[in-house]
């Protein structure tokens, strides 16, 4: 393959030429107007938040020596989990060949690209020196570091997702399958490594172990299905055609199974934490159990969607759209809890009355700057997705 072939390959990627006018030419319904205003407001918040961060650095955030990871880490995880989940859902059709799911492949894979880009946009303003990271990740790689593996694999994953998406646009299903499978495997490895970032912490008994690397894969699949319902809800304005309904009912049933497995995961994690009696873990488990954010996670991400699924055996697609909204808010709590709970217990180090009384629990409250950048990430994600729906044909081609 020479340069001419590559140029021709790129030139023949199907896309629609859109102008700013085209982007603004959406149906002016109250719902659309509200969404448009929210996206613009979120993007403005991103700009303001980043400007404050560039001026004040991490002092603009609520993070401290005792709680070095804050909301932006949680939001980054939220986006990359979404990306991995959409990659799994997208792979059902074009990689594994389940025909009913072929229709969502292109949309889900595009979703996986925009969500991980939003995640990278957020983490770029949490990592103190992102450019240094790019240089020394290559020059002096830390092979024993889960962060190194996670970051490197996610970089590769993004590349494979883009290539898969291009082949999907070109309707080259064979190549899309090869790159999709590779991307899926790399993505799952990356995501599992993200869980191991917490699993390897021997200073933090509440996180240490195999739980997070496996649980992350499960919750990614769950997140991907929630997002599939949300994307299709907007695509069809809640009036789902027959083929979409069939696929979503199936996805709803899979979601019922996954949520049931998640209940086992969470229940046994809590029971072993609380009753296992491990110092520095049991008391943290009790504290988590008594926190409202844990219950927000359980009710919004698990109980409400599972109730909707079980009530009509997954056939209530409209109900699942709204339950998926609830689910995604719950998933955000899930990510926040993961990050915060890991750092709850002070490391003590005998600093009982050093400078100030060591708190029994480490407190953290996200600053307004962190909230603005986080919402900005959501705005970026929605804006990129909206532009994508205009530029590319994200629906399945006719022959599917």
């Amino acid at each position, binding site marked *: 393959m020479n340069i001419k072939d590559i140029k021709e390959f790129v030139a023949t990627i199907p896309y629609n030429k859109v102008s700013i006018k085209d982007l603004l030419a959406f149906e002016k319904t109250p719902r659309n107007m509200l969404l448009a205003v929210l996206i613009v407001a979120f993007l403005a918040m991103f700009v303001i938040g980043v400007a404050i961060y560039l001026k004040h650095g*991490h002092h603009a955030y609520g993070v401290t020596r005792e709680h070095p990871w804050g909301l932006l880490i949680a939001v980054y995880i939220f986006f990359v989990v979404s990306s991995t989940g959409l990659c799994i859902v997208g792979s059902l059709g074009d990689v594994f060949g389940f025909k009913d799911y072929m229709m969502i492949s292109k949309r889900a894979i595009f979703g996986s690209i925009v969500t991980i880009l939003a995640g990278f946009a957020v983490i770029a303003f949490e990592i103190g020196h992102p450019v*240094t990271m790019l240089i*020394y990740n290559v020059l002096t790689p*830390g092979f024993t570091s889960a962060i190194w593996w996670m970051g490197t694999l996610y970089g590769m994953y993004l590349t494979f997702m883009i290539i898969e998406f291009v082949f999907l646009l070109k309707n080259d299903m064979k190549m899309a399958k090869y790159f999709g499978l590779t991307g899926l495997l790399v993505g799952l490895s990356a995501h599992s490594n993200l869980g191991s970032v917490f699993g*390897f*912490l021997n200073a933090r008994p509440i996180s240490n172990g195999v739980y997070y690397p496996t649980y992350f894969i499960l919750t990614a699949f769950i997140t991907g299905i929630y997002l599939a319902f949300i994307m299709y809800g907007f695509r069809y304005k809640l009036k789902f055609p027959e083929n979409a309904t069939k696929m979503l009912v199936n996805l709803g049933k899979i979601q019922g199974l996954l949520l049931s497995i998640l209940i086992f995961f969470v229940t046994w994690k809590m029971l072993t934490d609380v009753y296992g009696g491990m110092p520095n873990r049991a008391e943290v488990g009790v504290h988590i159990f008594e926190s409202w954010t844990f219950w927000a996670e359980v009710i919004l991400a698990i109980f409400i969607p599972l109730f909707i699924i079980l009530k009509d055996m997954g056939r209530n697609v409209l109900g699942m759209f709204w339950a998926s909204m609830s689910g995604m808010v719950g998933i955000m709590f899930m990510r926040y809890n993961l990050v915060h709970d890991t750092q709850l217990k002070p490391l*003590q*180090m005998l600093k009982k*009355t*050093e400078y100030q009384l060591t708190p029994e629990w480490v407190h953290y409250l996200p600053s307004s700057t962190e909230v603005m950048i986080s919402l900005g990430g959501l705005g970026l994600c929605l804006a990129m997705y909206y532009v994508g729906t205009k530029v590319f044909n994200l629906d399945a081609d006719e022959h599917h």
Partner: protein
Amino acid sequence: MARYGMALDYKNCINCKACEVACKEENGILMGADKHRIWVGTGEIEGEYPLLSIASNTFYPSQCQHCDDAPCQEVCPTNATYYDENSIVRVDPEKCILCSYCMNACPYDARYVDDRTVTVDKCNFCTDTRLDRGEVTTACQATCPTKVRIFGDLDDPESEISQVLRERESKTLKAHLGTNPKLFYLL
């Protein structure tokens, strides 16, 4: 090449905090409660007057433990945290990306962010200052009025630290984590 460590005769500590001041002065550590490489931990005296527990009135000087198997080094994605030729755990600010993973992974709360370089900083046994000048003591050791700290080469059987560790019992902190600290608390 040496393998530097420190023994702390911590029961002699009188909590004068001269070591904290000396560390800040010698190494140019910024002011502020969060910005410290070393510290003295103090416990509340237990019991109620007049039945107070004198035994509980102990101070605990502490800092980076310079672990032989340092979790902070293992988790660093760019190898910014490294063992130097004297087995001292150090941070190369050129390579540090401030991902803060090491701060989360260190079981001893020994790391903080230096606002000048915007990178993670920690005790390096005065390598950049006193050891570079050819001195053989750290600032905290040299200033201590009750001689709590003994700094030296653990691989040299004739060093004071090796002798004292042969003669007296000692403990390391959070030994169950398998980090193999090179800070020894003399019992």
